[in-house]
Structures are given as C-alpha cells and as structure tokens.
C-alpha cells in the first residue's frame, strides 16, 4: 500500500520490448542466414498435397461464438470479483465478514444462474452442435 513509483512499471514495458527485439532480431538473423528460393508450389497452403480449393476463410461453426460469448461474460464477472476477493479477508478482519459473504455470494449466484442456463439449453455441449452451414462469400 505504500505509494509506489511509476518506475515499477518499467519491467513490464522492458519485457514487451525484449519480446519485440527478440522477434525482430530473430527475423533479421533469419533473413541473413536463411536461403531464399521462393516458388509458387512451395507457398501453396498445405492440404496434404492436394490443390487447395477455395479460401479457408469460410469454414466455421457458430458454436465458437457461443463459447466466446459465455467466456466474455464470465471473464467480466471475474474481473469484478477480483477487487472484492482481494479485500474479502480485510473485511472479515474488520468484522464485516457476513456482509461481504452475502455480497459475494449473491454475485456468484447470478453467475451460477448463467452457467446453469447455458447448461440446460445445451450451449455447453459441443457435439450437439447443429452444424449451421453459413453460406457466404459469394
């Protein structure tokens, strides 16, 4: 809780910078060292030796989105729970443990309702996916 220095954030930036530096350096080394003999066949997308038919940017299942959807809701809820969890013990030591528990549990119970709903409606089953073919990319 002591007032901290902005310099404490430095490692975060330094490590990101190192990652970028490593990436660029690796690339540079690769450019220097690696042979360069491009050919059309070499740069065909790999399809077990067959000629690729059509673009790959069209095959997917709406299930992926539903998973992402459930994820983001849970993600946000856990974000909101973090500060409360962080002070939970403090509140308990201050004698507000019961109150904090009620606040916390009512929040979680709504979270549980969400997962129960999705479970009941089959959003959590992967196999049950109805294989919606999204016709597109005309």
């Amino acid at each position, binding site marked *: 809780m002591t007032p901290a220095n902005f310099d404490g954030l430095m490692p975060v930036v330094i490590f990101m910078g190192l990652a970028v530096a490593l990436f660029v350096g690796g690339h540079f080394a690769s450019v220097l060292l690696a042979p360069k003999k491009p050919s059309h066949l070499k740069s065909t997308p790999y399809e077990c030796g067959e000629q690729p038919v059509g673009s790959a940017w069209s095959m997917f299942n709406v299930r992926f*989105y539903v998973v992402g*959807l459930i994820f*983001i*809701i849970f*993600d*946000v809820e856990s*974000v909101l729970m973090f500060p409360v969890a962080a002070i939970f013990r403090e509140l308990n030591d201050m004698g507000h443990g019961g109150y904090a528990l009620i606040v916390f549990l009512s929040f979680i119970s709504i979270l549980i309702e969400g997962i129960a709903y999705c479970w009941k409606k089959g959003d959590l089953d992967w196999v049950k996916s109805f294989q919606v073919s*999204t016709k597109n990319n005309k």
Partner: protein
Amino acid sequence: MMGLASYLIISLILFVIGITVMIARKNIVAILLGIELVLNAAALNFVAYSRFATNNLDGHIFSLFIIVVAAAEAAVGLAIVIRFFQIKETIHVDEATTLRN
C-alpha cells in the same frame, strides 16, 4: 505535459475517430469497433478526472462499469450481427431495412 488537458485531448481525438468510424463505415462490425473507441474515450475521461479533479476513485468505478457494459454490448451486438448475417447473408448496415416503411 501529463496534465488533465492532454488526456482530454487524447480522449477527444479518440472519440472523434470513433464517431468517424461509426458514420463512415457500412459494416456493422466496423460500426461496433467505432462504438468501442467512443466508449473507451469516455472511460478515459472518467479516470483522468478522477486523478486530476477529484480525490476519490469513483471515476475508476465508472470506467470499470463502462468496460463491463461495453463487454455486454459487444456480446449482444455481435450476436445480433451474426444472426443478421445468417438471415440476410450480409452485414451491410443499409441492408437492415426490415423495419422500414
């Protein structure tokens, strides 16, 4: 240099770019991108004011809830986009004319 005004200016420019994206683009997902920019600009303002103008962290709470609402908005908005695409096979905003007339 790192005063309130500079944050306000950054947030304003962000907001204006968001508005431009929202108006100029016809792709619904792109419009949602613009909305995200606008929301972030607003949240940035809250935090900036919280540091420079007030002595409490209510601004932080506000921007937290902005982020929460933005996430919910993105989830529902994109779901609508996907459903719209399945029906209309396009996500061009001007094709959303069913409720017209």
